[in-house]
């Protein structure tokens, strides 16, 4: 019981993956890949001829040299490690609350230096444009006057915060922490699928996955020059600190909805790693437009709040009045410039699934550059021609409700029954403005351990971008994986898991 479950995994004495003779294990033929199906989707590990790509060669040699039950043992050890660290979410049923881990796959997803360089530059460009856009719509609204984006899409959005108009934000950065979802299409090109600009989560899983998977494959991890990501909390701290109007003794807090929130582990993890206070709404109070925490010795002033609570709940005086998670008076303190809130309020208007279709135009408008990263073709049901196209092609499209996230309120056309499609079609017709549609992208597949072999499963990629005085990414990401064979839904609430992501340095 005392032993850390992973401590007895040893790779040190194993064959050096780089000097061992290459073996010809083919996808779909040889152990452990006998059931590995290469389809229309781009595969991260195997070229179309079934041979592993260069970046996966070391992993391939390790996988073919280990017996399957040893892989199963390592997979189990990873899961135990998560359970013991309390990296769990709680499922409530009739009598007892049970705790589950979010499944982590043993096998890392590998991103080459060249691929990463492209993704990094593309995301930095994108966040710049989105922050300029937010500054514009909460300022002079030139983008509306110039007719780039329809007025009603902004003012009609439930995430638009009228209260934010004219409030300056530090460095013009409304979004300080962003987690963008990327996918790869059939040719392997990275496309942005979604910008998460409100309170994106998952970064603790990126770090926790690295912690266990590195120990499951220490030999190849060392030999492959994987770039470090452990500095993320430090980078986040620097970003938050630089948001304060002064340099010395900046008092920072992470604001969490509390222990029952499914991302509570992450909130506590980040606070601990940064060495700042983790606070709940009930720990804060506002007096004379200044925010304080209640401490054993008295009240202590707070300068920067990294909030992990949605806009709606942050201040019951201004937003949702029945919220008990927030802090009465917080918004006025914010407006008075006495506290910085990151991310700023009202950023959700720019990650709306309908605004998504306009982002390439926004990049050209604000930066006079071509977008480096592609997007997925998007049909706005609000436009009559698109609506007709969507209704006629429901069996080929993915339809999403504009304001939803987490895989809710969506129809995956090719996988739905005719009855489901008909029912969803009615919903679209009733409220076309609320829906967009995109062609189904056969997300790329990556090798995933399934208990008695390695099979292909669809994955996406969520890197985390920090923006403030500087804009930067740590070279890593959360790879989410649809564990059900053939499934394209990677959300953890819908049966998804995650993978460690190894960005190579050369």
């Amino acid at each position: 019981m005392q032993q850390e479950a992973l401590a007895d995994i040893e790779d040190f004495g194993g064959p050096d993956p780089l000097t061992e003779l290459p073996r010809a294990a083919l996808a779909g033929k040889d152990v452990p890949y006998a059931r590995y199906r290469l389809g229309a989707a781009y595969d991260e590990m195997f070229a179309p001829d079934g041979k592993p790509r260069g970046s996966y060669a070391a992993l391939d040699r390790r996988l073919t040299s280990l017996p399957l039950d040893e892989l199963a043992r390592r997979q189990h050890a990873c899961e135990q490690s998560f359970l013991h660290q309390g990296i769990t979410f709680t499922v409530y049923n009739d009598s007892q609350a049970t705790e589950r881990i979010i499944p982590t796959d043993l096998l890392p997803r590998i991103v080459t230096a060249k691929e990463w360089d492209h993704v990094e530059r593309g995301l930095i460009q994108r966040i710049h444009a989105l922050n300029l856009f937010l500054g514009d719509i909460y300022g002079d609204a030139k983008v509306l006057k110039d007719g780039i984006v329809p007025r009603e899409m902004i003012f009609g959005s439930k995430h638009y915060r009228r209260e934010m108009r004219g409030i300056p934000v530090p460095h013009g950065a409304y979004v300080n922490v962003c987690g963008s979802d990327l996918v790869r299409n059939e040719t392997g090109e990275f496309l942005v699928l979604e910008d998460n600009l409100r309170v994106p989560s998952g970064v603790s899983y990126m770090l926790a996955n690295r912690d266990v998977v590195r120990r499951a494959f220490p030999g190849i991890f060392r030999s492959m020059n994987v770039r470090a990501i452990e500095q993320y909390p430090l980078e986040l701290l620097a970003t938050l600190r630089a948001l304060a109007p002064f340099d010395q003794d900046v008092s920072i807090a992470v604001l969490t909805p509390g222990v029952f929130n499914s991302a509570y582990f992450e909130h506590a993890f980040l606070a601990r790693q940064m060495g700042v206070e983790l606070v709940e709404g009930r720990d804060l109070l506002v007096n004379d437009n200044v925010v304080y925490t209640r401490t054993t010795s008295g009240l202590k002033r707070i300068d920067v709040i990294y909030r992990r609570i949605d806009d709606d709940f942050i201040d019951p005086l201004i937003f949702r009045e029945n919220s008990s998670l927030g802090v009465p008076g917080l918004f006025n303190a914010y407006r008075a410039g006495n506290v910085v809130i990151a991310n700023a309020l009202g950023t959700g208007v720019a990650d709306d699934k309908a605004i998504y279709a306009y982002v390439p135009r926004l990049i050209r408008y604000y930066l006079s550059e071509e977008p480096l990263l592609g997007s997925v073709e998007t049909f706005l049901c609000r436009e009559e021609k698109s609506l007709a196209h969507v209704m006629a092609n429901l069996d080929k499209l993915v339809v999403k409700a504009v304001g939803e996230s987490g895989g809710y309120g969506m129809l995956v056309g090719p996988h739905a029954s005719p009855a489901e499609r008909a029912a969803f079609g009615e919903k679209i017709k009733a409220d076309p403005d609320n829906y967009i549609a995109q062609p189904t992208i056969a997300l790329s597949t990556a090798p995933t351990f399934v208990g008695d072999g390695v099979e292909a499963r669809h994955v996406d990629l969520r890197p985390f971008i920090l923006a403030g005085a500087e804009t930067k990414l740590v070279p890593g990401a959360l790879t989410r994986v649809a564990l059900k064979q053939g499934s394209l839904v990677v959300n953890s609430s819908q049966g998804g898991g995650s993978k460690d992501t190894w960005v190579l340095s050369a």
Partner: protein
Amino acid sequence: MLSRVADSLYWMSRYIERAEHTARVLAVKLESMAEQTPDDGRASWARVVQALGHMSWDEVPDDAFAITKRLAFDRANVSSLIASLTLARDNARQVREALSNEVWGNLNRLYLYLSAVQGDSIRAHAPASLFRRALDEMQALEGVIYSTLSHNEGWYFLELGKYIERAQLLGRLLDVYFRKDGVQPKYFDWLVLLKFCTAFEPYTKLYTASVRPQKLAQFLLFDADFPHSICFSIDRMSEALAHVAPAAPPGRRAAVERLAGRLKAGVDFGQIDELLSGGIDVFLNDITRQCEKIHEAVFASYITYGAETVL
């Protein structure tokens, strides 16, 4: 530190102490069963039930396994071992950022280990060795709390919770044994009482193996060096109180320090012969009541104070 964090650390520590006490008493009791006649055994179980649970002997079935199940694994019994551990872990979870990986990991493993025991299967588990194993883990937990956390204000809130709880648990246990009514303890019962408090060997070093109730009371109440004595617990409690809320205004500190000083003086100058003639139960009840008052004063001064009182 945040008042809410202090609150959770304090309770986490109290519940860990309570869980450890329960585990040790049950382990010792189960191990000593073979050496008692059925009648003596029954009287001895009755004392354990009174000391550990908020229930009367009539509510408890006359069967060691059933009692163990009730005291250790019944989640509906708020003072059971598993209920205490659950509360300790819930509090730890709420202040996860204030704890080290080692402390959280140890407590979490302990919880997972014991919560895997289903009440009906304890016969198969050899419960005494199960509690011994849990105690090993608890001592490891105590070790990482000591060695991996900074000994700052938060740590002193842990100390405060631990020793207030310990003083009260010892008080209740001694009270049960020194009660004038009911079946009086025999020689073997006094030995077991010492073992409940991990005190058998330290006691014999001081007083030899001749166990007498008066000496035993002297030792468990007033020995300044032994960690499971009431005197030692109150010393540590006072020391912890001197270190928490260092920057609180003097007025609010005074309310707490006055109560702690009075309690310490009462124990420091207590005389065992006076007590045994004048009623030890009165003395023990008084200590328990004073501990409760200190608890209330700490909360009023440092944790639940109204914002209007400081602005």
